[in-house]
């Protein structure tokens, strides 16, 4: 009888462990998703104003194209950081 009880206890611990690991993995994935998604929103908000101003400036003077493009991608760093965090969460 005792053996059966022990075996059941071991089995339930194993399933518990598996489910805990699975839920941890799930939380990691959620975290990674939030990191990329929210930073993406942040970058978008930041680029909104710059992009509009840059297009205006390019309409005035075409030579501004290169610099305008550059200014527009500067907030891209934010989403890159998000992506880095996401990758580290998922793969390391």
């Amino acid at each position, binding site marked *: 009888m005792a053996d059966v009880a022990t075996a059941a206890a071991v089995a339930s611990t194993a399933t518990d462990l598996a489910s805990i690991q699975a839920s941890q993995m799930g939380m990691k994935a959620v975290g990674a998703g939030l990191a990329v998604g929210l930073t993406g929103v942040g970058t978008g908000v930041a680029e909104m104003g710059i992009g509009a101003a840059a297009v205006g400036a390019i309409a005035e003077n075409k030579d501004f194209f290169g*610099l305008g493009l550059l200014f527009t991608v500067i907030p891209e760093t934010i989403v890159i950081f998000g992506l*880095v965090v996401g990758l*580290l969460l998922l793969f*390391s």
Partner: protein
Amino acid sequence: MLAPKRMSRLLIAASRDQLSTVIAELYRHHLFHIEEYVDSGVDGYEGFRIGTPLSGASEASTDLIKIRAIENAVSINAEDIESKAVGARPELMAKIERELPVLEREVEELTGRRSKLETRVKELEQEIQVIKPFSEVPFDMDLLRGYKKFTVFAGYVAREPTFSVPSEVYFAKGKEKSFIIVIVLADQRAVVEKALQESAFLAVQIPEESGPAQKRITDYTGQIASASQEISEIAKKLDEVKTKHTGFLVACEEVLRAEVEKTEAPLRFATTRQTFVAEGWVPIDSVDAVSSDLEKATGGKIYVTVIPTDLEHDSVPVEYNNPSFAKPIQLLMDVYSRPKYTEVDPTLMLAIVFPLFFGLILGDFGYGLILLALVFVLGSFMKGEDGQQFLKVLRNASISSVIFGLLFSEFLGFKLPWEPLIFSRHLNIGGEATGHGAAIPELMVLSIWIGILHITLGRVLGMYNHAKQDHGEHRTKTVMANFGWLAVMWGIVIAIWSYAAIPLMPDLRGLPAIMPGVAIGYIIGAVLIVLGVVFIARDAVLEVIELPTIISHVLSYTRLVAVGLSSVAIAMVVNFISIGMFISPGLANLSIVGIIMILVGVVIFLLGHTLNVALGILGGGLHSIRLHYVEFFTKFYKGGGKKYVPFGMKRRFTED
């Protein structure tokens, strides 16, 4: 290399009768950057005036305007045409005199007729718009106007109105609105107007036409068709003119532009009644050739001398001085800003590092080959100078992409038949990855190493630039400030090494502790940081608030890995969806459904990879150049140099 071409300031003085000879000689050399004379009482230039154009200037300009008008009319753009010499100046000038008036008349007549026809088509379309509401009306349109005792209303109503006075009504029920014509005695119009208003009446204009409306519309449509026919015939004739005369036109434009530039050059010189003086810049190694040729051409009746350059006050024009493989990337330097004459020209570094970064981001053998093919195809469309240079930049980047693809063992997201020679980027998507999977921490650290070294190089160059450009106490301060930034960065790095073990980086945790818990690494790091902050603050206190950028700039280099991995991930996901979810099941079961699944899979594969190539060019290109512009150049590079524009032109369509 690493510095712009050295220039000498040349002063040329001669008597006025040598003016055209000297101009022709300078133009031929295409080396003399004219320093424009401004009539503002410069020392030593008392009594000088701005010169007047040589004879023939206005004729040449008029002809040039004519040529450009014709080119516009038949849409020729010299940029898009392959360089090919068609003839020498004298014969072209003769040809211009002979053929230009005829050609001008021909093109003018064609374009004139075309614009008249286009106006006519517009008028007819407007007429049709007016008649259209009446197209279903079964009586002639003359019946709708010309009355003295009656008033005619025509327009759309929302519902059928009822009138309490005698009236003649035509009502055509429509889906949303109905068309109505009401004819009523003029003195009872108010009653009708009121009733109409109640049914939401929207009046339309009564056309000044006769006969049934439908017939008029058919008639006008016919007229429009014939006018359009005529317009397309004219377009065909203009096309014929284009194919026949393109070579002649672009060559003429070039000859005339040269003529105008030459005849108007004296406007940039200082002149007196008898003499003229021209100042300008010539690359040092060409000074002898230019001066001796000028003396030969004028038979020695000229005074040419080199004036010493004053780097503080002269704005010396800047011409790049790079080995040929680095020339295309000058395009990207000019997008940022041309270097100043006195600072380091980083073009060579950009030419080496930009393709490396691009390859690190888009390191895929297949994509690299696709980009190379794209460069090849675009090469036959983009004939302009800038376009060609851009393609060369893209070509170098793609070659780097191919090489990194072989190292990463990647082909459109698949694995090549060998293990990655450097760190693997194969993610575990769709259970495809074998071996150890992606070495993401190692790749991240690698990119941070690149960042640290790149920024260190930038700061060292910054120290060099300040040492070269500044003077006195300021010079010491700025050089030390740059050193301070370096010290803070390395201090942070050493402190981190003493705290944690990081793959691919030295582990300083084993260093002996000075006091319990305080390893020597911390001390070194702290000293470097404090020293650095002091140096920075001595130059400009406010700069201290910029200190966090040290970390964010270094971490910014992780984009080399992050953007690259996202491109790998997209490729692998596309492969998994198209092959794993459509093509393989389709192949397993070759029924009609199976074949459809295979086709869908192929479409997804093509679309997905096309998208990823486009993203790859944008991501790889923009991020690589941005790392240079924002993280690298801000450490040392000011730019703002004046472009070297030598007097003369690169002949594309004419011979000397």
